């Protein structure tokens, strides 16, 4: 019954990296959650529980062949879209966005799991239509429909960050199919033409964030404040940082949203450039391993799935860090394994579970 090759091909390195990053994340969160009086806020313990729960889930998932899971990809995705629509109308509002459903003591952010089901669904579609020589416009109708059906409910929550990630994953994955050159040209030129109109669909606060990103000094006390304080935090970390729990920007709360959007700034301030370099190297390894797994996969399903998950990690990591160093407007994109939040942590671990799963079954 049990195939020894599953263990031989288990990517211990990837799992080790993930556990290491999570460990760093927990240390970082400890600094953020400890008040000056020495009390530790429950966020810290909750995050540890989520990691443990996530790892348990991981060992269950890797025992199910991903091909059996991807079979039901469309059903999973339809269910999550329905949940998204439910959230849109009945969800709990936090920070002005309808992102949460409350189930007893826990709140779930369904847009997180949507990222995974979207990747599954798109991987299934592209794999099953791979034989086509090249996609023309009408062949792209289904993927476009899939994108729009996922994008809009998230966009209207509004959660511009996650919606953007969905779009970027779509583009990333679509790079691996053959699109007819004329069609590609047509799509790109149409998007460029309609780009300015997109601006009018943005909500006021979103427009504001973009404007402030372009010029943070525009409003140094309100929205621009976050970016300025984050840059100060990162920059003042220097080569070796200010030391654990000694970051003045974070401890004295000049840095906003420390446990979510700006966790990296806390890390950068307290541990400095060397630790940032090391952490980024670990993140790079995840994306790199993901893509290698994609190329070594025994099935096209596995390749597309691994590509999608690599894309997910790549975009979240780079956008979050770009945000903290003032190279991208402030949108709610978490840093995998670092940002506090159960939904984000579980989905990141789920992504890793799929990568491990594909790698274990790369034998032909």
């Amino acid at each position, binding site marked *: 019954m049990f195939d020894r090759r599953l263990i031989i091909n288990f990517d211990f390195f990837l799992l080790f990296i993930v556990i290491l990053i999570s460990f760093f994340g927990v240390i970082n969160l400890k600094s953020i959650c400890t008040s*000056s009086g020495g009390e530790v806020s429950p966020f810290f313990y909750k995050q540890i529980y989520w990691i443990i729960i996530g790892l348990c889930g991981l060992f269950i998932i890797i025992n199910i062949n991903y091909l059996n899971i991807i079979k039901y990809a469309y059903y999973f995705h339809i269910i999550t879209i329905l949940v998204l629509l439910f959230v849109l109308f009945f969800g709990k509002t936090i920070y002005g966005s309808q992102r949460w459903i409350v189930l007893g003591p826990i709140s779930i952010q369904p847009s997180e799991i949507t990222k995974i089901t979207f990747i599954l669904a798109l991987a299934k579609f592209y794999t*099953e*239509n*791979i*034989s086509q020589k090249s996609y023309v416009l009408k062949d792209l109708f289904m993927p476009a429909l899939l994108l729009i059906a996922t994008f809009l409910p998230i966009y209207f929550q509004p959660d511009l960050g996650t919606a953007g990630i969905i779009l970027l994953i779509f583009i*990333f994955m679509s*790079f*691996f199919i*053959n699109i007819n050159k004329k069609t590609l040209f047509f799509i790109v030129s149409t998007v460029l033409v309609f780009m300015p109109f997109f601006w009018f669909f943005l909500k006021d606060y979103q427009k504001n964030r973009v404007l402030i990103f372009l010029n943070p000094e525009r409003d*140094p*006390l*309100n929205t621009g404040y976050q970016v300025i*304080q984050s*840059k*100060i*935090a*990162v*920059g*003042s*970390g*220097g*080569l070796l940082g200010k030391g654990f729990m000694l970051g*003045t*920007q974070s401890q*004295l*709360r*000049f*840095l906003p949203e420390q446990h979510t959007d700006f966790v990296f700034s806390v890390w*950068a*301030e307290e541990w*400095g*450039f060397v630790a*940032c*370099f090391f952490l*980024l190297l670990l*993140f*790079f390894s995840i*994306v*790199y391993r993901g*893509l*290698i797994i*994609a*190329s070594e996969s025994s099935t*096209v399903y596995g*390749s597309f799935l691994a*590509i999608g998950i690599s894309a997910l990690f*790549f975009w979240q990591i*780079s956008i979050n*860090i*770009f945000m903290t*160093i003032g*190279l991208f407007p402030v949108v709610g994109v978490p840093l995998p394994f670092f940002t506090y939040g159960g939904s984000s942590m579980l989905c990141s671990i789920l992504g890793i579970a799929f990568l491990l799963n594909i790698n274990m079954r790369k034998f032909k």
Partner: protein
Amino acid sequence: MSPKLNETAVEKSINNRIKIVIFIITLFFIFIFSRLWYLQIIKGEQFNELSVNNRIRITKIPDSRGRILSKDGEILVKNIPSFDLSLIPQDTPDINKVLKNISKLLNLDFKNLLRKYEKKKNRPPFEPILLKEELPWDKMSLVLSKKVDLPGININVVPKRFYCLGNFAPHIFGFLGKANYKELKKYGSEKYHLGDIVGKDGLEKWGEKYLKGKPGGLQTEVDAFGNRKKILTEISPVNGQDIIISINPVLQKKAEDLLKGKAGSVVAMNPDNGEIIVLANSPGFNPNLFARGINQKKWRSLTDNPFHPMLNRALQSQQPPGSVFKIITAIAALEEKAVDPHKKIFCSGSYKLGRRTFRCWKKNGHGWVDMKKAIVESCDCYFYNIGLSVGIDNISKYANMFGLGEKTGIDYENEKSGLVPSSSWKNKKYGKPWQKGETLNTSIGQGFLLTTPIQIAAAYCGIANGEYIPRPRIILEIKENGQEKVFKKEIKHKLNFSAKNLSYIRDALIASVNDPEGTGRKAIIENIIVAGKTGTAQVVSKKKNVDEKKIPYRLRDHAWFVAFAPAKNPKIVVCVLIEHGGHGGVVAAPIAKEIISKYLKK
């Protein structure tokens, strides 16, 4: 679907593209690395500084300016706490809302508050913006109780100067104002900063270097909401030194009350040591108006007032002394042995010199007068005679001996020196020889002669003590860091007059007040012998005697009276000048009487 044949081709194409993607992603990460290198290594110091600026606030702890106390320990000038409302923009997330709350809470105009904020919007966000000065106590506690709803709002306790006497003695204390560039340069930029308060006049100005302390500082760590987390360093302020002055506040108030409605001054001195007992001027002002900076309108009303309330008349009002000066002419004549005091001279009411006629104030003349009678009745003709005998240069020599024509050296910067004419002075100034008629005018204290009340008071100290002219002084002690710097008596001029001549003059001055014919009879005090001399100084020469009240104010005579008492052992010299007041004996003598009796009968 899934033709197996194609699978390897598909995988090949995917693998090729993965290589491209890995390349692009590597570039992305290299870009992030270089950006972090730029922020943390190249710009690290700069950002570190910014993070320090973020958390460290330096607040000034104001020092307390030295107080001014009377000899008896009464506090005359002190500091009281004043509560200022300010806003630190950095600590205020929603400025509009906080300003609205404040305007509701304190009943202040919201637009006005907003304007104050907008004006200083571009300053560093951690610098407090002053919203309202001098909150009353109840409003201050109201703000403190609602502090939770008012993030970034601070109450600063600022010491404010308070002049306990209010309207009284403004010219002694002077007033405060914001330092200008000239003053900053003078006092040095180490101790003073732009916007600091300095003494602009009076003792506040004279004693600036003593009164000014050194502000302390507090270096605190704050969080993003402006809450103080811990104190890093604290430098305590050094308070200014107290000044003890010789003024008698009760007498000072009395003198100013007596001067009310008039323009003039009263100077009272101790003839032995030169201590100023009273230095009163009228009209005055309330120095409390200047404590936190005066507004344009009030300043205008003070400077545009035709009676010049800011003027320290006792030191700055230069007027002809009139008959008060006759004593100096008499001493000059006696000491130079130019006349025999007992020799009588006939006064017909006028004196002819060449073709000009010089009048005596008494139209019908005094008849035969000796020196004593001439002093008692203030006969002008007698002094025309002896003035001519002794000569202008002797008169001016003695006037200088009495300290006229120069600053008395009282502890103020803006004292005027007056003028004592002489033949060489006139030659130098006008290039013309001295005229005898001018000697006549000078002998009775008119003509070119100009004196200030403080000079006259100091001069009569010499007659009272018979030995010297003391330097008038107000500052007795400066408490210097626990030690005391004591200012001792100073003698400006030694007088070497014969005792016989001095006692003759003193007798004449006693008679001038106490004799039935004396001009100073309004200064008679029961049980105390007062010696004094009246003076009525002409502003313009009048051809005929006319009713004083019909003459325009500006052309009316100045009324002088100077006295010392008790005559045998003088304790006080009082000099009164009422500008355009009329006859000295009528207007000035009663004021001197009140001061002397209050001082000696306490």
